[in-house]
């Protein structure tokens, strides 16, 4: 019995040691600072059913993108852009992306930052 417990402990320790660095980043919307960020999967996996974050891209007769975020408190913000560079960046968003975006006084997106990294949790 003692041997079994010891083995289980060692396996558990090994698992913890090899799990890798993890980060959870739920959605933050800072209206006053004109920016928002969060990990898509963290928002999806959060306990609340309120928050989300993302961008969409239109490629029809025109090209544009909208980025949007709502935090757990229900604060919502969205911006739009027709800037080719920002649109191209937004197209690199994946299910586990850390996304940051900012906007100006007329709600035009001024930047989009996309980070795809191992520490961010996948959607569950």
């Amino acid at each position, binding site marked *: 019995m003692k041997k079994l417990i010891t083995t289980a402990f060692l396996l558990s320790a090994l698992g913890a040691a090899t799990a890798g660095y993890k980060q959870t980043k739920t959605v933050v919307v800072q209206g006053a600072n004109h920016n928002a960020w969060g990990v898509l999967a963290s928002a999806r996996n959060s306990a609340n059913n309120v928050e*989300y974050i993302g961008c969409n891209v*239109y490629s*029809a*007769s025109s090209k544009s993108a909208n980025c949007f975020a709502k935090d757990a408190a229900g604060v919502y913000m*969205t911006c739009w852009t027709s800037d080719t560079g920002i649109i191209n960046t937004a197209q690199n968003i994946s299910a586990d992306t850390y996304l940051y975006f900012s906007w100006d006084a007329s*709600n035009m997106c001024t930047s989009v930052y996309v980070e795809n990294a191992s520490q961010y949790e996948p959607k569950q």
Partner: protein
Amino acid sequence: MKRAALTALAIAAAVVVGRATVSTPESTHTERVIEHRSVEPSAVQASGLTAAEVRDIVRTELAQQAPAAAAAPESPPADDAALARAHAAVDAGLADGRWTNEDREQLRREFVLLPQAQAEEILRTLFTSLPRVKVEVDGPAV
């Protein structure tokens, strides 16, 4: 006879150059490349045509093709009816002080038909109005 043949050859070369470069957005780039050419084609030298004459031939050919290239639209033509419907969708959607999923769907049907300038006009109109209403969409506003 030989001179005529070489002249025809030079014109043909000019047409080829013109066709190869007519789709290049910056026509000034094409001109710069031609001007910086350091080696004269042997056929041109043999024909007795000067570099200036060859440039004239090339420019004439490019000028004849330029109007067609300039007329090629980069974006679909303006659709005033779709723009009017898109504006109506925005106005109707915002009229009750809310911007909802249904309002968004109504706008999307017209929005996707709009060329770039008109789409941006609609986005500008909507996004400057959103802070004054309650946004009830479950994601993007458009």
